[in-house]
C-alpha cells in the first residue's frame, strides 16, 4: 500500500469529505496560502477557495463561537486552532456552549463541528505552545475527544469525527506530523470509541495515547529481547473510551502500565487506571497499575530539560520492568 505522512492523511481526509459534502468548510488562522502553522492545509485553498478555506483574524473565541453558531444552523465546520494551548482562549465556546446546547435545549439541535489542534512538546516551543490538555476536555459531557497515533488512524478517525453530529476535539501531536505509514487512498471511517491493539503480548498491557503509542511500541521491541512480552493498546479516543478492550487485555496479562505525555497528576491515566480496578480485571491484577506521564511542571525551553519533562522510551521500559518484577 502507498505510504503518506500523518499530516497528509489528515489533509486527504478533509479534502475527500469536502468534495462530498458542501456543508463542510474550514476556519482558522493562516490556513489559506500559508497552509497552516504545520502545513496541514497546504494547497487546500487552491482546490476549495477562500469561502471554504476561511482565513480568520486572530480572534479564537470569536471564530470558535461562530463555528458553534454555524453548526447549530446546519453547517459542518472544521476549526483549526493553531496550537492546542490556545484552546484555553476558546474554552467558553467549547465547554459552556458547544458541549451543552443540545442537553440544555431538551434534545433539540446539534453542534456537528470538529476542532482540530496540534498538541505536545518536543520542538522547543516552551510552556505556552507545548501542552497536552486532553484530560480537561475529556472531563466535559457532550464533547468527544480523539487522539490518533498513526497516519492510518488519523485519516479514518477524522472521517468519523466529520460524520459525527457532536462536537469533536481532535488532537494532532506535532511530532507525529512527519510520520509515514500505510494509508488507503479511498475514504474510510474508524468508529470513535474503538481501541486498537497495536501489538499483542502476554506479560503486561501498556495503554498508551498519541505519541506515547509509538514510544511504547519501541519499548516493547526492546523488552521483547529481554523476554518480556508487551501488549500495546491505543484507546484512540478518550471520549468515548473503549473500556472493554482494555479490561480484556488486562485480564489476560494481569499487569497494566498507562502512559501519556500530559502531566501525570490529574491526567487521563488516572481515569484508565480506575476503569481497570473497578472492573473484573481487578481480580486478575498481579501488580499495582503503573502510571507514567509528564512531570508536574510547565514545559521548559531547553531541549534536554524538555525531553526530561515527559516520558521517553527508557522511562516506559523502566515502568514496565517495575510492574513485572514486583510481586
Amino acid at each position: 500500500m502507498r505510504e503518506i505522512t500523518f499530516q497528509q492523511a489528515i489533509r486527504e481526509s478533509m479534502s475527500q469529505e469536502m468534495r462530498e459534502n458542501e456543508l463542510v468548510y474550514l476556519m482558522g488562522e493562516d490556513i489559506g496560502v500559508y497552509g497552516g502553522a504545520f502545513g496541514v492545509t497546504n494547497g487546500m485553498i487552491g482546490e476549495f477557495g477562500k469561502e471554504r478555506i476561511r482565513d480568520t483574524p486572530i480572534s479564537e473565541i470569536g471564530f470558535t463561537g461562530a463555528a458553534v453558531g454555524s453548526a447549530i444552523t446546519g453547517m459542518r465546520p472544521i476549526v483549526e486552532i493553531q496550537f492546542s494551548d490556545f484552546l484555553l482562549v476558546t474554552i467558553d465556546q467549547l465547554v459552556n456552549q458547544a458541549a451543552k446546547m443540545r442537553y440544555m435545549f431538551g434534545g433539540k439541535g446539534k453542534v456537528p463541528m470538529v476542532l482540530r489542534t496540534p498538541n505536545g512538546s518536543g520542538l522547543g516551543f516552551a510552556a505556552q505552545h507545548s501542552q497536552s490538555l486532553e484530560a480537561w476536555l475529556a472531563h466535559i459531557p457532550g464533547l468527544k475527544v480523539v487522539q490518533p497515533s498513526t497516519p492510518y488512524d488519523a485519516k479514518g478517525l477524522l472521517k468519523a469525527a466529520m460524520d459525527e453530529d457532536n462536537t469533536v476535539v481532535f488532537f494532532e501531536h506535532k511530532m507525529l506530523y512527519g510520520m509515514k505509514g500505510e494509508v488507503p487512498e479511498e475514504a474510510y471511517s474508524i468508529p470513535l470509541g474503538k481501541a486498537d491493539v497495536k501489538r499483542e503480548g502476554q506479560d503486561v498491557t501498556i495503554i498508551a495515547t498519541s505519541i506515547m503509542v509509538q514510544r511504547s511500541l519501541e519499548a516493547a521491541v526492546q523488552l521483547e529481547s529481554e523476554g518480556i512480552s508487551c501488549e500495546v493498546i491505543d484507546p484512540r479516543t478518550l471520549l468515548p473510551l473503549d473500556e472493554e478492550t482494555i479490561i480484556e487485555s488486562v485480564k489476560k496479562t494481569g499487569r497494566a502500565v498507562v502512559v501519556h505525555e500530559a502531566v501525570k497528576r490529574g491526567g487521563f491515566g488516572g481515569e484508565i487506571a480506575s476503569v481497570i480496578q473497578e472492573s473484573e480485571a481487578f481480580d486478575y491484577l498481579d501488580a499495582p497499575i503503573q502510571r507514567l506521564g509528564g512531570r508536574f511542571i510547565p514545559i521548559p525551553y531547553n531541549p534536554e530539560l524538555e525531553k526530561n519533562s515527559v516520558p521517553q522510551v527508557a522511562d516506559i521500559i523502566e515502568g514496565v520492568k517495575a510492574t513485572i518484577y514486583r510481586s
Partner: protein
Amino acid sequence: MSTQIGNLDQDKLLQIYYQMNLIREFEMEIEKQFMRGKLYGTMHLCIGQEGTAVGAIAALEPEDKITSTHRGHGLSIAKETDINLMMAELYGKATGISKGKGGSMHLADLDVGNLGANGILGAGQAHAVGAALTSKMRDLGYVVITFFGDGASNEGAVHESMNLAAVWELPVIFFCENNQYGMSGSVKDMTKIENIADRAVAYGMPGHIVNGSDVLEVMKVTQQAVERARKGEGPTLIEAKTYRWKGHSKSDPKKYRTSDEEKEWIDERDPIVLFRNKLIEDGVLNEEQEKKILQKVKKAIEGAVEFAEDSPEPSIESLEEDVYA
C-alpha cells in the same frame, strides 16, 4: 554645529542610534546561529521595527514598565535587559534571563520593568491594565506601555483591556506595532478599517498614528501619551506603521506578500538608515563617531555570543524548581 534635535541632546540621540543598531545586529546574529543549529525552537525577528521599539521606550523613565510580545527581542534590548543574559536564554543556558526555561517567546526582566513577552496574543494587554492599576492604587507614578501587533489587535482580550483602562483612567499606553501582517494575514484583510488607531474613539481615548520608520516621531508621540498618563488623564492608543522584513518565524516562504512591497519598505523606509541620515544632516553624527558606535555594537554582540556559548547547560535537577513561589 548643532548637537541637538528638538530637546534631545547628542548623548540621547546617539544612545538611540546605538540601541537601534544593537537590535538589528542582535537579530542578524541569532538568525545566523539559528541556521547553524545552535539555537532551538522558534524565534520571531523584529528587523525593520527598530524605530518602534526604541522610539517608544525612549519616552519612558527607568521605573516605567512595558509588556512585550513574541517579537520582543528589540523591546527587551530597548528596555535595557543585559544582552548577555538574553543571548544565553536563547541558547537555553542556565545563565539565561529565565534560566533556559523560557526561551525567545517568554523573555521577561522584571528588574528593568519588562513584565514579559507572551506566547498568547492578547494576554499582555490585560496584564498592562493591571500593572497600571497597581501604579494608580498605590500612587507609584509609573506608566505602562503594552506592545501588541496588528494581528493581536483582533483578540477579544485587547478590546476588553482598552475599555477597562479607559473607564478606570489608567496610566497605560496601548502601542500597536502594525507591521502589516499577522503571520500570513494582511491587516487589509483582517480589519475593515484603515487605521487600528481609529478604534480609540470606541473606547473614549485618544488615538494617534505614527510613522514607525521615524524613531523621533515615535518618541515624540509616545512622550505626549506618557505625559497624559502621568497626569492621571488615562490611556492612549498609538498605532505605528512599520514592517517586519523577515518571515513570521524562523522559516516562512512569505507567499502572502510581494517582493516589490518588501523592497519598498526595506529600501525606502529603513528606520536606521533614515535616522542616520538625519543625524548626519543635522551634524549630530560624523563618520568617526559612527564607526565607534558600530564597533561597540559588534563587541557587545560578540561578547554576548561568547558568554552564551561558554555558559553551562541547566541541570536536570533544576527542572522542578520555580513552579511555585
